[in-house]
């Protein structure tokens, strides 16, 4: 049969090359060719249909077998993987918490240092004023006070590096971001995220036989040739 198909196809290809529709006679020849071609197409499809069906059935059977084999293992593997992922997420969260606390400590140190400087500056200013008024004793006391404040501030030097928990290790398994989304209100979706519903447009255009006006859409008729009144 495949040899017959090949022969018919070759024959049709040769005949097609010789067809040029210029008058009624050549149009008749072309019409006969089209009808013969359509018959050939039908025969080819009919020939391959049972093979496709049995191949599809065999494929379905294999898929089904694979599915039931996987059904036993996949949920278990996925559950354990979820456990690993949860643990990693929790470890990451803890690490970020320690990081945030350490940063907070550093900021508090900067604030305390600035506050100490303000106090020391105020004490030195007051000492200058006391000195100007001839009150050397008070001035000395204030200078001493400022020195103590500065000494205290110096002791606030950057704290030792915090002990940040190590990044969790799961050799052979890595985490990757998996950003997902759900549309909550498509009326406010930016235009670039919308795609034209061509199925609906096509349906409305065909139903109205082109008598519909859709902004942004050009509607036109492109007739196609069909076989009429033939019997198999």
């Amino acid at each position, binding site marked *: 049969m495949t040899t017959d198909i090949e022969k018919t196809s070759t024959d049709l290809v040769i005949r097609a090359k010789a067809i040029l529709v210029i008058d009624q006679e050549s149009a008749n020849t072309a019409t006969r060719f089209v009808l013969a071609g359509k018959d050939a197409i039908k025969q080819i499809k009919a020939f391959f249909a049972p093979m496709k069906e049995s191949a599809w059935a065999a494929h379905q059977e294999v898929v089904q077998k694979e599915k039931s084999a996987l059904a036993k293992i996949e949920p278990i593997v996925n559950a354990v993987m979820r456990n690993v992922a949860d643990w990693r997420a929790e470890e990451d969260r803890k690490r970020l918490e320690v990081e945030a606390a*350490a*940063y907070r400590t550093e*900021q*508090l140190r900067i*604030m305390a*240092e*600035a506050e100490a*400087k303000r106090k020391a500056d105020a004490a030195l200013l007051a000492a200058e004023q006391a000195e100007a008024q001839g009150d050397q004793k008070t001035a000395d006391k204030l200078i001493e006070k400022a020195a103590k404040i500065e000494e205290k501030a110096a002791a606030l030097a950057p704290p030792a590096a915090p002990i940040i928990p190590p990044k969790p290790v799961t050799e052979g398994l890595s985490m990757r971001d998996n950003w997902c989304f759900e549309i909550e209100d498509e009326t406010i979706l930016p235009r670039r995220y919308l795609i034209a519903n061509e199925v609906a447009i096509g349906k409305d255009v065909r139903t109205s036989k082109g008598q519909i006006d859709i902004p942004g859409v050009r509607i036109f008729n492109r007739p196609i040739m069909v076989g009429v009144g033939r019997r198999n």
Partner: protein
Amino acid sequence: MMSNAELHEQFSNRVKAHPAYKLSSGERVPSVTTITGILNKPALVKWANNLGLRGIDSTKYVDALAVIGTLAHDMILADLSGESVAGIASRADPATRDLAENCYLSFCAWRKQHDIRPISLEQSLVSERYRYGGRADMVAEIDGALELVDFKTGKGIYPEMFYQLAGYAPLLLENGIVDRPIERARILNIPRAETEIFLEKAKSSLRIEWQIFQKCLEIYNLVKEIEK
């Protein structure tokens, strides 16, 4: 109405007109952006190269986009400080204004989702302790947390943007602009064109970024020492 060139010049002048950051002693100190500027920015090199391959002059492209970005930035800050956004927008030509308004609308959509109480907007500050200056876009209580926010207009959010924020935080702490540690640092990337997208990234710790910033400051000071 100003032309693009005039607007750009005005913005450039505004940038140039930034008061030089000076300590109480009168000594001039570098700004946060000058300090982080010592870092190589690989993303920028790649971006400029891509523009070059497409036959686009990156300098002109930057100028055009910068005008839109700066105008959008100003509109956002005007909005936050209760000034007239329309007044700011009217300075530009219609095409620039349209694009900047798109940016502003993206910001408005984000703003609607949050409770924002600004504490400080674009305040120039100097650190006597660390000897540098800077101007953070915004410090605000956002949804109850004390946040440091920077508005960017560009293609993405890169790690070095957080180094810059890490430099701003001590300025706010040292100058008593905030009375407690900053809980979150956030960068909002506001798109100027269809090719850019709205992005935001927030971090609860800038500890390592602050260390990086201090190293940059150290290198900057050492380089200046050599140049003396």
